[in-house]
């Protein structure tokens, strides 16, 4: 049995808006094991963004336990949280969030700039490796404006990989892409997952969930479904089935 990367126990998050208390997460418990590809689904307002922020150590739960890679996140200071984000988590966003007018390689290097243990040479080497992994080894010096949406998201994936995280955290990573490109990106995620990387993928698209090995569905701050996907689709095969584009 592989070890749990993420352990969540009775996690609650409440926001106080004036006199009202909004309970975004109402006591959630689940584990994510090493090597799992989990999609977290739910409509807006279901608490999945809050979930994602806590998973990504951008936010702290009101109560309950959250452990990532053996580290209890509760009671960590802001700076300690930053270090966890830097060393254990790779973020991928819906809108890529690349630095404009900055080359792909420099974008990928970004997380390592905040890690004083990594030397300049190693930083560059790892950034090139990460870009090669996502098939952009030829476009190191291209700036985001010279890249397509899919390519930009690949740079973002490379950036999330560069610090060798224990988990990738994707927030609607295919939300801005057309189906074909989305499937391309998903096939990259699947490949990375096959190499043993744990992935938590937040989405509201049903078809994306079919590429993952497990799906957690949230509604109104509770888990309403948590099931293993017995029949994982291959994004590569699905991509091949799509009608060929004219151009």
């Amino acid at each position, binding site marked *: 049995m592989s070890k749990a990367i993420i352990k969540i126990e009775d996690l609650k998050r409440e926001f106080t808006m004036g006199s009202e208390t909004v309970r975004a997460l109402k006591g959630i418990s689940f584990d994510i094991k090493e090597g799992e590809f989990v999609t977290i689904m739910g409509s807006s307002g279901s608490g999945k963004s809050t979930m994602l922020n806590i998973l990504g150590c*951008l936010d702290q739960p009101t109560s309950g336990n959250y452990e990532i890679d053996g580290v209890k996140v509760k009671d960590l200071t*802001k700076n300690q949280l*930053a270090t966890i*984000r830097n060393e254990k988590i790779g973020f991928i966003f819906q809108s890529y*969030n690349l630095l404009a007018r900055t080359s792909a390689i420099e974008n990928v290097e970004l*997380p390592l*700039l*905040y890690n*004083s243990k990594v030397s300049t040479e190693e930083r560059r080497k790892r950034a090139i490796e990460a870009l090669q992994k996502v098939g952009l080894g030829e476009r190191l010096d291209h700036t985001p404006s010279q890249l397509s949406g899919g390519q930009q998201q690949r740079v973002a994936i490379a950036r999330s990989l560069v*610090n060798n995280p224990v988990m990738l955290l994707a927030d609607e990573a295919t939300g801005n892409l057309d189906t074909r490109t989305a499937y391309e990106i998903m096939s990259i995620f699947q490949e990375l997952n096959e190499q043993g990387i744990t992935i938590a993928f937040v989405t509201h698209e049903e078809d994306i969930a079919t590429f993952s090995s497990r799906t957690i569905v949230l509604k109104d701050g509770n888990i309403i479904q948590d099931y293993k996907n017995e029949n994982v689709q291959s994004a590569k095969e699905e991509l091949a089935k799509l009608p060929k584009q004219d151009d």
Partner: protein
Amino acid sequence: MRILNLFKIAFKAIVLNKMRTLLTMLGIIIGVASVIAMLAIGEGSKESIRENISSMGSNIITIRPASASSSGVRASGDEMQTLTLKDYEAVKDQATFLSYATPLVTGKGQVINGSNNWPSNIYGVNPDYLKIKVVDLQSGSMFTDAEVKTASKVALIGQTVVDNVFPDGQDPIGQMIRFNNIPFTVIGVLEVKGENTFGQDQDDVVIAPYTTVQKRILAIDYINQIMASAVSEDDAPNAVTEVSEIMRLQHQISNPNNDDFSVQSMEELISTFSSTSEMLTVLLVAVASISLLIGGIGIMNIMYVSVKERTKEIGLRMAVGAKGADILMQFLIEAILISVTGGALGVLLGLTSTVFIEKFLNWPTSVAMYSIVISFAVCAITGIFFGWYPARKASALDPITALRYE
């Protein structure tokens, strides 16, 4: 390592916004340059005033009769006849802070050479006069103590007198001139000194032994002034006190309020003039400082806009592991880079414009090292001061909010 990376990040941000950075810098550049140039002008004019006054003899001390009441009538100092050769001798013999001293008697009259004549002043002095006034001779020689003793009819004349009574360009040395009908042999011509600070022509002068002037021209036995030079400029105040005491003893005055003489040093004059130009400098620098301040506010403005504009980027940086301190440093370094680079360029511009002012406007300037150091330091501090608030704001951003900021 980490700091180096932050420097790289800040530098990159600056390079990516060249135009904006340059315009921001311009405020600092102009501020620093104007502070340096203004100080240079102020210092320069101060120095030139000092030099100007020094050219009249910087450590000159003059002793004049002052108005004093004698039997109830208060007479003006000019009409007093209380200064005598005895006073001169006492001062000369007893004063330790004086290097030279001469009695001075003055008279007005007409200098005549053939058909040319010119109204001028005659100064009756001893040979030390030239050393006190720091005047050299163009040609000829000074009269001697022996000639003073015998009240010889010899004279030295200034260039203005030469120009007017020897218009043909003939060598005045050895020529006879008449001053108020007394014939003098010209034995020397004084070097050209031009106008003094008060606009007085220092070359319009005839110099003769004081004995000659006393006896043959003015027919008096008192003297108008005693002129002396202090051992050094720094000793001038001591010399003034010392001379005053000697004079009081001579004139048997116990209460300094009853002094029938006045002792003045050039030092007092210099400090009066210096303080005027100092005030002017302060004023100029105050104006220049305001422009430096405005430059600083420009930095703050741009940094503030920059933080707003890059909120999302800040969120991203935080998401990938930047700590609040990293963000703070990034923006602070950016502000400091702008201000320090601007400061360096400002120093350069300040120095160049100083050279131009000197060359084309002919204003005396003098760049003081301290003005460079101070303005540079001020502008670095400005960068930190005005960069701090926006940087602080950036570092305090909540990463979630920053990431979602549009």
